[in-house]
């Protein structure tokens, strides 16, 4: 267990040593701030609803930029050989990398709490939907991160990792569009699998157990696939 934290700490520190983390952070704040401001001025409503949707869209491409270096960089530098010959399991490595990216993401999210204070100061927002929106954002973000980390295990090239990650996240996000092409069970399955479908409730203020289970299973599934992906490279 403590290996996971050791790896996560080191990876998190390494984010702040590179320029990519700062750039992603800055871009995120820029976009999130823009959405928040524009929507607030337009709707005159003390709510995070509109902003919450748009922020997730920015995550579609920002999170792959964070996760791209998780494994790709190690492989390219050759340090994966160093890491994997230490007494740590593949699972510990995968979780360590995941938690580092998740930690980075949480720091980014934390900085948006400023918007909430603005709403509270100038309006009378309904806090329920705000809490649930953040929970939704956390779950969706972690889901994207799990996919991004997996994508990073597939290649030595960070850019390719980012592109694959982005493509997978996008595909699963818009999967619900395809459900209109099918009927009955098929339509329901596709609709269920779509990442975006489960986000709506959180934004509306509803924390449905079904949606939480979906995201947690999603995260666990892709972390599992990530560990397998590392293992397979050993066996080749």
């Amino acid at each position: 267990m403590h290996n996971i934290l050791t790896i996560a700490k080191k990876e998190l520190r390494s984010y702040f040593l590179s320029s990519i983390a700062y750039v992603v952070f800055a871009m995120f704040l820029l976009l999130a701030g823009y959405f928040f401001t524009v929507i607030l001025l337009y709707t005159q409503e003390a709510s995070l609803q509109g902003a919450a949707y748009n922020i997730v869209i920015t995550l579609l491409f920002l999170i792959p930029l964070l996760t791209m270096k998780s494994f790709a960089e190690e492989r390219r530098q050759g340090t994966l050989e160093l890491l994997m010959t230490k007494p740590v399991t593949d699972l510990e490595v995968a979780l360590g990398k995941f938690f580092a990216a998740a930690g980075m993401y949480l720091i980014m999210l934390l900085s948006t709490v400023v918007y909430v204070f603005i709403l509270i100061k100038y309006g009378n927002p309904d806090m329920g939907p705000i809490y649930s929106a953040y929970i939704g954002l956390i779950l969706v973000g972690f889901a994207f991160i799990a996919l991004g980390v997996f994508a990073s295990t597939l290649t030595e090239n960070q850019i390719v990792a980012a592109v694959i990650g982005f493509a997978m996240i996008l595909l699963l996000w818009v999967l619900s569009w395809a459900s209109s092409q099918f009927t009955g069970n098929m339509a329901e399955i596709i609709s269920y699998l779509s990442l975006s479908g489960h986000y709506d409730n959180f934004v509306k203020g509803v924390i449905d157990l079904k949606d939480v289970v979906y995201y947690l299973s999603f995260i666990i599934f892709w972390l599992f696939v990530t560990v397998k992906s590392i293992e397979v490279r050993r066996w080749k």
Partner: protein
Amino acid sequence: MIKVENLTKSYANFKALDGVSFEVQKGEIIGFLGPNGAGKTTTMRILTGFFPPTSGKVEIDGFDIFNDSIEVRKRIGYLPENTPLYQDMEVYAFLRYMAELKDVEPEKKNQHIKNIMKRCGIEHMKNEIISRLSKGYKQRVGLAQALIGDPKVLILDEPTIGLDPKQIIEIRNLIKELGKEKTIILSTHILPEVAVTCTRVIIINEGKIVAEDTPDNLENKVSGVAKVIVTVRGGSPDLIKSRLEGVQGVSNVTVLKNHAGFTDLSIQSEKDVDVRDKVSSIIVQNNWGLIEMHRETLGLEEIFLKLTKKG
């Protein structure tokens, strides 16, 4: 300490290792020699648990590399080929990370790292970013990292590559010192180094072990017969040759060169017989000048080349 049984490693289109077996006792320093692509790095990667063999068994300190991979990795220090390091970290931070992964006790961690840095001569570099270090220092950091956790077994893949002669000597001495407490396998191309630091040599070629012995035995075995080369002043080549052939223990004499009164001859002696005393006596007795005499045995380099000829 280390038992390797019948290791094979096959890839889609070729066999990297074909039935490699050897044993290493505690406290030995094994020199792993072989041309590029022979299978040295592959063997080391299997020993350290980086990837599994296609078939075969490896046991280190009683633990099986496949079933108890983590236990094995706790007991080894590994310096991979090309010395990969986290370029963005400071030396001390990097070593501390390695120490944490190796479960070094927190109270002793700091002192442990300091001692290792001192031993590797990188104490003054503790706050340097690794990407800024010269190749020699990067190599030392790589070696230091392998020493973290005080492992019983060290597996070093080309530990002196890219170092200048002075640094090579320093690392060599360090390895010899470490060899007193630990079991070491190192791979190298630098043959004189092997003769000096290693207690035993394993030569591998095309995935198979072709020789395994102490450096001295290897030299004697493979070089076969020892030769003595003499330069004599005076006398005629034929006379010198016939007199020398009469010396007890001499099996064959060949005239190599004759010029301006000097004759070079190559004297083959019977196995394990040192004919130098008698040869010098005969030459002096005949009132010839013994200008030069030296013994020629196959060095490790030639042995290596001989054993690793393709096919």
